[in-house]
């Protein structure tokens, strides 16, 4: 797998964009800025996926991450981050000693990665001497239908991917759907207010009494069992 020509130019553009946007995600003071930088990292990584011929994953990445997860993040920031913004908290990182310790840990990770690249280069070099991406693409595209312009071919990555997913991964696929169902129910249950919990009689009686003393409004919605009747 060797890229060449414009592919390598785009590889470096998107790789550098992904890493810088990732760094800014971690270092930005404003949480909304972090979320926007994370979106640009995700889009850059999706572009790297396209360079590697995984168009379906790139599409899923943009639809699910950028379109779904990041919008959820922005909503939660809007709901939650008000206090910190108003207080104007100057500290965005932990205490300096903790930051130093974790940076030393990350430095160790970088060193491990660099030695891995140096020592493993002998093993990786044989891996890297495969055919160039252009020849490979031309060879694998021979049987595919031509696109409207006649110069490119219609990819069958998504088709192969679907076949693989349903032939070999159908059980994990179903388990994933159950996981998503659990996640939906769990997040709805977690995000309920005390008023909603009282309305469906889901609170322990003692907790309900305490809450009513604090917030008399709750008697309007709560189902209170009379002790005598």
């Amino acid at each position: 797998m060797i890229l060449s020509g414009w592919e390598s130019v785009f590889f470096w553009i998107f790789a550098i964009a992904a890493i810088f946007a990732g760094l800014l995600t971690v270092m930005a003071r404003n949480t909304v800025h972090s979320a926007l930088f994370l979106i640009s990292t995700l889009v850059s990584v999706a572009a790297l996926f396209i360079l590697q011929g995984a168009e379906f994953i790139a599409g899923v990445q943009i639809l699910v991450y950028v379109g779904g997860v990041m919008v959820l993040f922005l909503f939660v920031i809007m709901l939650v981050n008000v206090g910190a913004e108003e207080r104007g908290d100057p500290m965005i990182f932990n205490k300096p000693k903790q930051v130093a310790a974790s940076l030393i840990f990350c430095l160790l990770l970088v060193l491990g990665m660099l030695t891995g690249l140096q020592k493993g280069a002998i093993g990786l070099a044989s891996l890297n001497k495969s055919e160039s991406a252009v020849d490979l693409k031309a060879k694998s595209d021979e049987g595919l239908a031509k696109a409207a312009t006649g110069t490119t071919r219609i990819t069958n990555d998504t088709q192969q991917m679907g076949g693989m997913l349903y032939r070999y991964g159908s059980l994990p696929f179903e388990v994933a759907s159950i996981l998503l169902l659990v996640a939906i129910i769990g997040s709805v249950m977690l995000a309920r207010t005390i008023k909603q919990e009282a309305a469906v009689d889901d609170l322990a009686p003692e907790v309900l009494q305490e809450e009513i003393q604090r917030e008399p409004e709750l008697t309007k919605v709560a189902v209170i069992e009379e002790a005598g009747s």
Partner: protein
Amino acid sequence: MFGIFAPALFLLFQQAERTRLGEMWENIQHPNLSRFLFIGALLFIIGVAGVLTRRNIIVIFMSIELIMNAANLNFIAFSRYLQSTGSANALAGQVFAVFIIVVAAAEAAIGLGIVIALYRNKETILLDEIDLLKW
């Protein structure tokens, strides 16, 4: 004695330097599997640094998303490499990437639900102020 060897050494070093630079230029011109792994590892390390250093719980969640994306990048790179060797199961990496995206979406939904519940009870999202289990 040294005077004789010095130019030879100089030439030798220059030659070595030139070949190393040539190799580097070759690597830059033709990114291969290890470049993709390198980018993935860097993204992973940035994510770990974010998890360990930030105070805001939402930014920590975002760093976790970054880590999962780094793993995805590695899976796709190896999947592409296996396609180039003509392996029959080459697309398994892409299937894994889909499942990672599913798990990340579920994790984000649950985690942000927890953040909202926590904010309702503790009025803060800074991790060092959430010390219910401290003693």
